[in-house]
């Protein structure tokens, strides 16, 4: 019978603190819905049978784990926050004669209601939108759209289990908190006279230095592989710098402003600076975390979006022709055989090869120092320069691919490098000197197998005789003999299924030659794999971006609401000594604005600084379209900022209402 009273008390106190509870319930619902959707997609039977579906399922499993992990941390954090806010009320119950176990009962009822609402409505919302998400995922992966509506029982069960555990843990924490605190302490007015934060110049400067190092790294690194290595180092420097700057730098800066009396003793700066010093003391760590989280969301989203959108670019760079045949160590008979076999397959299928490109390459690694290309033992320590891979071909192959034939003497060469333009008038290689007849803006057919990761240099020399002489010199130097490589590329320009069928035939036919290593690559076949990889990443990026965004803004919302309660008295006092309502409102706006947008502005700076490094990383994945990446980044940032601003508006309104409620009294 008495239970009835506790549940009634629970409901009424939830209603009373609805300003705190509604976002909490909303967040719980959102998290439950998203977790269900992730689990549902993962369990989707249609996905398993699609090409590349397995990888996508793996990614979704990972995504579900991230969402689950985030839900645990976030809901726990929010609930902790909620209880701290309500300590006064709970203390009052205690003073009025309620024992702590009775309070625990009220809290238990509150948790039961919250859990029921969040899990129930969350699952409902999840089930309703799961089909939509499935369609979106299939659309992104370009899979045929399935019909029918499914509810995954396993996903429902996992969701209920996980969230029951989360809510139980939150309750345990709340009861622990109530146990720990004495009733008088519970009742005592919030914070009486908090100490002014100290200026910690050393930490502030260290933060500045750390951020500087991180930024410098991100801005100066040219080489994609270096970017791969140093990316995480730079990230760590920037994270440390961000925390230190938010914690110590902000206070040092504000105090510096305060020291400028002409600036400080004016209405707006006076209120803003003095308020912000305390605000930063309490919230610097939270704001820095929000900044880091936002940066991660932005970078992840913009890279996955550009990879997905730039999929065709990536495919065309990785596969300059639809089909490419590569033969290592060939003789002239092999070439004739390959050509005739390919021709036969195409004829049987009624297809014709277009944009045909053929290269014979001699490739070996070299070390470029100025105009000297050093090999083998020539490379000594302390020499400045870069490692490159050198590809040498004959004018005959080159002239077949260009409209205007070129003539070269035996000591002349054409040069192409994928790292800017070759700057020297000559090339020294293996005891020979070639005069550079011309530098090429682009290797025809992109050399049939460019990877942008490594620095490559293409040399076109007069004929195969010169190529053979270079090979001989390389061997004479005492190096292992490099093999000659034959490459044949061509387009078919037919629908995907036909292209893949022809590719399989060619592959099958060429596999008969066991003596020479032959490989066949098809852009059309690779497309499905790329699509499932980049599409899966894209979907995951969107989804997790949404989850993180939800978490971020809710943390900010709660921060603002607590601050609203704390600032109440402050604004009452200011009105008594002569601050008008309009001035109060503008002061509030500028404070909320600062707290809200500081992390966003800092995140924007981080994203801008990371841009160059991110382009280098994308180069590793063969995405070199900087304009595309720039517009994706700008688009993602704009979207993020719009959502962020919407939350800011709502929060500022709630904050003002809290502060204004105390006015007139």
């Amino acid at each position, binding site marked *: 019978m008495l239970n009835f009273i506790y549940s009634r008390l629970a409901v009424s106190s939830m209603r009373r603190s609805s300003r705190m509870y509604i976002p909490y319930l909303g967040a719980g619902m959102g998290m439950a819905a998203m977790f269900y959707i992730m689990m549902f997609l993962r369990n989707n039977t249609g996905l398993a049978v699609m090409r590349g579906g397995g990888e996508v399922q793996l990614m979704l499993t990972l995504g579900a784990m991230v969402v689950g992990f985030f839900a645990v941390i976030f809901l726990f954090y929010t609930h902790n926050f909620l209880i701290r806010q309500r300590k006064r009320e709970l203390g009052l119950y205690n003073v009025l004669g309620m024992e702590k176990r009775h309070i625990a009962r009220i809290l238990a009822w509150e948790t039961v209601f919250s859990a029921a609402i969040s899990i129930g409505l969350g699952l409902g919302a999840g089930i309703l939108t799961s089909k939509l998400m499935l369609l979106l995922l299939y659309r992104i992966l370009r899979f045929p759209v399935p019909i029918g509506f499914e509810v995954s029982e396993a996903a429902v069960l996992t969701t209920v289990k996980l969230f029951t555990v989360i809510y139980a843990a939150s309750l345990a924490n709340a009861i622990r908190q109530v146990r720990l605190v004495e009733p008088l302490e519970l009742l005592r007015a919030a914070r*009486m*006279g*908090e*100490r*002014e934060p100290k200026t910690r110049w050393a930490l502030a400067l260290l933060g500045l230095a750390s951020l500087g190092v991180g930024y410098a790294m991100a801005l100066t690194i040219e080489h994609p592989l270096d970017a791969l290595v140093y990316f995480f180092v730079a990230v760590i420097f920037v994270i440390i710098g961000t925390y230190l700057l938010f914690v110590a730098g902000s206070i040092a800066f504000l105090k510096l402003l305060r020291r400028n*009396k*002409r600036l400080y*003793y*004016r*209405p707006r700066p*006076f209120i803003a600076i*003095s*308020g912000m*010093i*305390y605000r930063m003391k309490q919230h610097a760590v939270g704001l820095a975390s929000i900044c880091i989280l936002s940066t991660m969301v932005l970078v992840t989203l913009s890279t996955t979006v550009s990879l997905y959108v730039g999929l065709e670019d990536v495919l065309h760079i990785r596969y300059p022709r639809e089909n490419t045949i590569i033969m290592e160590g060939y003789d002239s008979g092999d070439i004739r055989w390959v050509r005739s076999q390919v021709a036969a397959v195409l004829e049987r299928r009624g297809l014709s090869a277009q944009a045909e490109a053929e290269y014979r390459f001699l490739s070996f690694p070299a070390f470029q120092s100025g105009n000297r290309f050093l090999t083998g033992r020539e490379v000594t320590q302390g020499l400045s320069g870069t490692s490159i891979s050198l590809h040498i071909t004959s004018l005959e192959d080159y002239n077949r691919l260009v409209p205007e034939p070129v003539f070269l003497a035996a000591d002349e060469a054409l040069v192409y490098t994928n790292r800017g333009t070759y700057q020297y008038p000559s090339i020294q290689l293996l005891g020979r000197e070639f005069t550079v007849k011309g530098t090429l803006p682009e290797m025809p057919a992109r050399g049939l197998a460019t990877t942008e990761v490594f620095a490559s240099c293409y040399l076109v020399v007069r004929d195969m005789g010169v190529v053979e002489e270079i090979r001989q010199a390389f061997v004479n130097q005492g190096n292992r003999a490099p093999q000659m490589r034959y490459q044949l590329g061509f387009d078919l320009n037919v629908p995907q299924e036909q292209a893949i069928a022809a590719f399989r035939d060619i592959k099958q036919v060429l596999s008969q030659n066991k003596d020479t290593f032959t490989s066949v690559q098809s852009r059309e076949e690779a497309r499905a794999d790329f699509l499932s990889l980049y599409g899966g990443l894209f979907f995951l990026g969107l989804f997790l971006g949404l989850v993180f965004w939800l978490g971020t803004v809710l943390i900010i919302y709660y921060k603002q609401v607590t601050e609203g309660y704390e600032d109440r008295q*402050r604004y*009452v*006092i*200011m*009105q*008594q*000594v*002569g*601050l*008008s*309502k*309009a*001035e109060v409102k503008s002061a509030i706006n500028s404070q909320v604005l600062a707290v809200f947008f500081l992390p966003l502005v800092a995140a924007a700076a981080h994203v801008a600084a990371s841009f160059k490094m991110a382009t280098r990383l994308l180069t590793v994945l063969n995405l070199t379209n900087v304009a595309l990446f720039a517009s994706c980044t700008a688009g993602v940032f704009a979207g993020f900022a719009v959502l962020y601003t919407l939350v800011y508006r709502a929060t500022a309104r709630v904050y003002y209402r809290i502060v204004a409620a105390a006015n*007139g009294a």
Partner: protein
Amino acid sequence: MHLLEVKNVRKVYTTRFGGAKVEALKQVTFTVEKGEYTAIMGESGSGKTTLLNILAALDRPTSGEILLNGRSLAAIPEKELAAFRRDNLGFVFQDFNLLDTLSLKDNILLPLVLAGKPHREMEDRLQPLARKLGISDILSKFPYEVSGGQKQRTAVARALITYPQLVLADEPTGSLDSRASEGLLRLFGEINAAGQTILMVTHSVKAASHAKRVLFIRDGEIFHQLYRGTLSVEEMYERIADTLTLLTTGGAVHA
């Protein structure tokens, strides 16, 4: 001309969901002359805080009029009210109402900052005032670092720094121990002797006994007043105590 004129002020509160009306002030009429030190005494719930809020232009009366220097408060537009308060009134509160984010100095300067005064003028006003109040040495400290008496002196400095026409004090000794109270009341006497008009609301007999005139308020009406004349503080204390005894025993005394 009177400095402050309160004419037939009535204040009725309506409870939130309509229905019951509470008459906080029935009909209050009195005047304050320039240089006067007046105390308004009354029990909790007698309407004295309501009256003070109305005098401070933080609240508007239901009917009646308040004139400061012949200017009606009702005629001041909402937008100018804050500036009006800032320029003409100084406040001293029971719990000091200092901002804990500001040093004592900045707390004192707050009204001048809000008024947009140049920084040099602020310093020129601050130094002599701080010396007079004996807080010159602690100006750079924060409210949490100083005693209640020092906080209240700071609040007094904040009230005086705008050179207000009228200082309104709401139970200024309410949060102070007896020694600090004594010091503050002596300070009020000195300030008043220098020409500052003070209006204090209190239920402390001791605080009221320092004033030159005491108005008694009960159930929303002024029902008695005492002038000190040539009486000492102790004699005044006796008189006030007697009046309060009469009040609680139910006597209907009218001035």
